[in-house]
């Protein structure tokens, strides 16, 4: 038998032997992590070939006190392994080299000898550094056993083939890293929840109702403790009798909307029933702000602030402040000042707000369009924008929203891509707790079969809307927070975006390819049909949410930099990166400070320590990068922009600090050096423009506002060489401006005074007219105050 054949056979036998032991263990409480097959006992007599990993000692290196073995000098590792087997009295069935010193030995079983005894023989040899059984390992698959998980395509790995689901977020993979933490609270600002739903009850915290309008509240307990949803059904009488609240509504059953959102956020998972939540362990804080016909901004804002742990008059202190706030609600119009004010207060505490983009196919709803909010647009299973989803540059990223394929046009067909979640069957009042389905089931009107409803007071619907895209992302954010508790809202938002997957540029299931999505030009510019999301971040966000990629982003460390408040040119200062931090259960390994090429070169002292020093330049602008790397080789980078008068960074001073400046790309900056100078008409002056925060270092020069200058004021070349006019201009001082080609708002200027050429003859030496002398003197004084012109 050839060696390779023997190897395969032996491995198969070993796998079978180990698998045979599977049934022997695993009794007792079910492990939420996939149960690993138990290895066969090392103490039992071996009956199959035993695979052992052996590491040999380097030649000449032996265990302390052991006799030098001659064959340690043998170079051929195969000969060394064969000699080892002979010395140990073992029959070598096969052998494979991993490295020069590390090998896998397949040992024929000795009658009656256990694996432990075989290992002991090898370990006793002075040539062996260690010997270990070559065991089976398993992928950390975390498929929950919830009965409806099979319908939750949106949480599973993207399927391929005819029924491909590229927009699925692959929570299954992420759960092998973490299933979340019960110390993390997610607020569900919505219509309240059904607190007795068996798939939610263990996850729910006591909530609060902020509805001040008794009709909207539809019960007498608002405002007040508790967030039980009494139902929000609308009758024709409601519409006619409450036109100010319900004038634009249609009569219909209760939505149980907050319950549906809560299920996706964090239904009890792996409990052999119902659905799996995006996070298995986070706590859900229900905050009731919606009721019949919606909810008022003022109530919603109060709910947001309270959820964040910010005091709200009339409400008790929230003892369970949220780390993430989900808002599957909205309305048309631009973000209002009051929403932005509340959002700024909340994000300053490090809390992330996730909001739905809207279901109009138009511009993003408020509050999803507010700065600092993770607005989420909705995708079809194919990764294209679902027709109803709103869109625009305010969207952060996209997630499945559910789509029915042909269900809308084909009777009796299922809504295959519904987002199955928790709900209640009550048409008006609460009834049995249940789950959304893949048909619309209304005993009085439904054309669909298999509804299994008890009576006409019940109904079941499929589940669609950007309302359900948001909790998918909020759930991912909760998982991210579970592995790196120091991520603030800006970092969570940026890492969610950075980890998103590019949108497919074709629709997998369309007979005719849909158009490319565009930025809505106004509220009447609706894109109510499927469209291809652009990958420029201007329509459906940065990309498709992806849970394992988001966790990889979350696991990166956080670079933090503390800077001196005030600096001046020539000053020696310290850049303090000691506030940086690694993810939970990890540590930082290295620090690196580096001056970025392209701008001003900055000399750094202590470039590989957490605190670096530098001397602030007197002119110019430069960028210093700070890289922190953790014990797993994962890194984070932060930039510091250095000018003679300021040091700026978007990095926090300390990782974990709640304070979060709204993320914005570092502004392009330009500096021109020297900022003031004097040149004689017969000479040239070379000016240097440095540009930072862009890869395009090119600038456009002008003299007194004239691009490239002219014969009257002098000319300037693309290289920054200024040639004065033939005679001293009036006034003698010209302004030379450099404008970044990357950003027209990034300009900087320098003042150049043109002086007369030295008079020839007459004893030599030049002479300046008195106007020039005066101008030069004034400029010299100014130059002492500021040696550099800098703008962004």
């Amino acid at each position, binding site marked *: 038998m050839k060696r390779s054949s023997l190897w395969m056979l032996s491995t198969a036998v070993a796998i079978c032997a180990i698998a045979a032991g599977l049934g022997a263990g695993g009794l007792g409480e079910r492990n939420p992590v996939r149960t690993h097959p138990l290895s066969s006992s090392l103490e039992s007599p071996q009956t199959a070939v035993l695979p052992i990993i052996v590491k040999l000692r380097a030649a000449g290196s032996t265990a302390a006190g052991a006799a030098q073995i001659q064959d340690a000098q043998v170079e051929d590792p195969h000969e060394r392994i064969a000699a080892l087997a002979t010395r140990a009295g073992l029959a070598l069935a096969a052998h494979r080299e991993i490295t020069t010193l590390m090998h896998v030995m397949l040992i024929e079983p000795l009658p009656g000898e256990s694996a432990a005894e075989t290992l002991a023989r090898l370990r006793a040899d002075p040539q062996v550094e260690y010997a270990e059984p070559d065991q089976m390992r398993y992928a950390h698959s975390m498929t929950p056993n919830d009965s409806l998980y099979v319908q939750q395509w949106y949480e599973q790995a993207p399927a391929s083939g005819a029924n491909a689901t590229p927009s699925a977020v692959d929570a299954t993979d992420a759960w092998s890293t973490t299933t979340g933490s019960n110390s993390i609270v997610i607020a569900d600002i919505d219509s309240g929840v059904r607190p007795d739903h068996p798939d939610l009850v263990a996850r729910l915290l006591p909530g609060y109702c902020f509805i001040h309008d008794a009709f909207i509240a539809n019960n007498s307990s608002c405002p007040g403790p508790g967030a039980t949803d009494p139902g929000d059904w609308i009758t024709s009488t409601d519409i006619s009798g409450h036109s100010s609240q319900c004038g634009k509504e249609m009569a219909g059953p209760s939505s149980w909307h907050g319950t549906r959102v809560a299920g996706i956020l964090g239904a009890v998972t792996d409990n052999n029933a119902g659905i799996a939540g995006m996070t298995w362990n986070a706590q859900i804080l229900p905050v009731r702000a919606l009721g019949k016909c919606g909810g008022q901004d003022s109530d919603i804002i109060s709910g947001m602030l309270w959820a964040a742990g910010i005091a709200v008059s009339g409400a008790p202190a929230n003892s369970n402040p949220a780390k993430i706030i989900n808002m599957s609600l909205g309305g048309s119009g631009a973000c209002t*000042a009051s929403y932005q004010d509340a959002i700024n207060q909340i994000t300053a505490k490090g809390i992330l707000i996730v909001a739905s983009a809207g279901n109009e196919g138009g511009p993003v709803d408020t509050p999803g369009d507010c700065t600092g909010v993770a607005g989420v647009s909705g995708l079809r299973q194919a990764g294209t924008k679902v027709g109803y989803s709103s869109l625009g540059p305010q969207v952060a990223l996209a997630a499945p929203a559910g789509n029915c394929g042909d269900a809308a046009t084909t009777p009796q067909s299922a809504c295959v891509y519904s987002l199955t979640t928790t709900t209640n069957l009550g048409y008006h009042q609460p009834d049995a707790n249940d789950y959304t389905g893949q048909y619309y089931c209304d005993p009085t009107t439904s054309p669909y079969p298999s509804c299994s409803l008890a009576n006409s007071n019940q109904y079941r619907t499929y589940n669609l809307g950007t309302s359900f895209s948001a909790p998918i992302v909020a759930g991912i954010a909760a998982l991210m927070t579970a592995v790196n508790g120091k991520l603030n809202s800006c970092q969570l938002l940026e890492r969610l975006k950075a980890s998103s997957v590019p949108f497919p540029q074709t629709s997998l299931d369309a007979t005719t390819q849909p158009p490319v999505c565009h930025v809505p030009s106004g509220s009447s510019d609706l894109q109510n049909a499927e469209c291809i999301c652009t990958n420029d971040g201007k329509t459906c966000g940065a990309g498709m949410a992806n849970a394992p990629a988001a966790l990889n982003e979350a696991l990166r460390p956080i670079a933090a930099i503390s800077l001196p408040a005030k600096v001046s040119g020539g000053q020696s200062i310290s850049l303090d990166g000691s506030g940086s931090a690694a993810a939970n259960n990890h540590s930082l390994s290295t620090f690196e400070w580096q001056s970025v090429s392209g701008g001003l070169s900055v000399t750094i002292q202590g470039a590989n320590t957490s605190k670096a020093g530098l001397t602030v330049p007197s002119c110019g602008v430069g960028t210093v990068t700070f890289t922190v790397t953790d014990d797993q080789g994962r890194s984070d980078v932060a930039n510091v922009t250095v000018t003679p008068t300021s040091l700026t960074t978007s990095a926090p001073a300390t990782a974990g600090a709640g304070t979060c400046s709204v993320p914005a790309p570092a502004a392009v900056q330009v500096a021109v050096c020297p900022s003031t100078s004097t040149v004689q008409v017969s000479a040239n002056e070379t000016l240097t423009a440095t540009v930072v925060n862009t890869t395009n270092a090119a600038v456009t020069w002008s003299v007194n506002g004239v691009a490239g200058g002219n014969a009257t004021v002098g000319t300037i070349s693309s290289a920054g060489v200024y040639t004065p006019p033939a005679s001293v201009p009036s006034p003698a001082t010209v302004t030379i401006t450099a404008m970044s080609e990357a950003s027209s708002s990034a300009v900087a200027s320098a003042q150049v005074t043109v002086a007369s050429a030295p008079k020839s003859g007459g004893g030599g030496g030049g002479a300046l007219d008195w106007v020039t002398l005066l101008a030069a003197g004034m400029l010299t004084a100014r130059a002492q105050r500021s040696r550099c012109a800098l703008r962004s």
Partner: protein
Amino acid sequence: MRQRFLSVVPFRLGLVSFGLMVAACAASDASQKPGAAHDAACASQVIIVFAQAQAATPDPGLVAQIAQAASVQLSYVRTAGPGLYVFSMSAADADSSCKDALHRLRQDARVRSVDVDARRRALD
């Protein structure tokens, strides 16, 4: 005719004066009384953020001054959160949307922002 005319003028002047006094009294009190402007052409609930930080409830004097300057009636309803105050606003404006009244309030330097307390919906 002249005599009649003369007799009518003082009566009309008195009526106008009385009316103006009543209107002035109503206006001076409107900022404090909830529902003071039943006959206003526009009414809306608004959320106001003041330029200067306020206590848990806003300074009634400041509110009255702002209301008078903007020719609106403001009635404090509640505090939605730190710095965010809910008012019932009304004005005797022609437009029922209160757009003009909101614009006048927003022109006041003592007001950082005013937004209509709009209705939002679940996005299913």
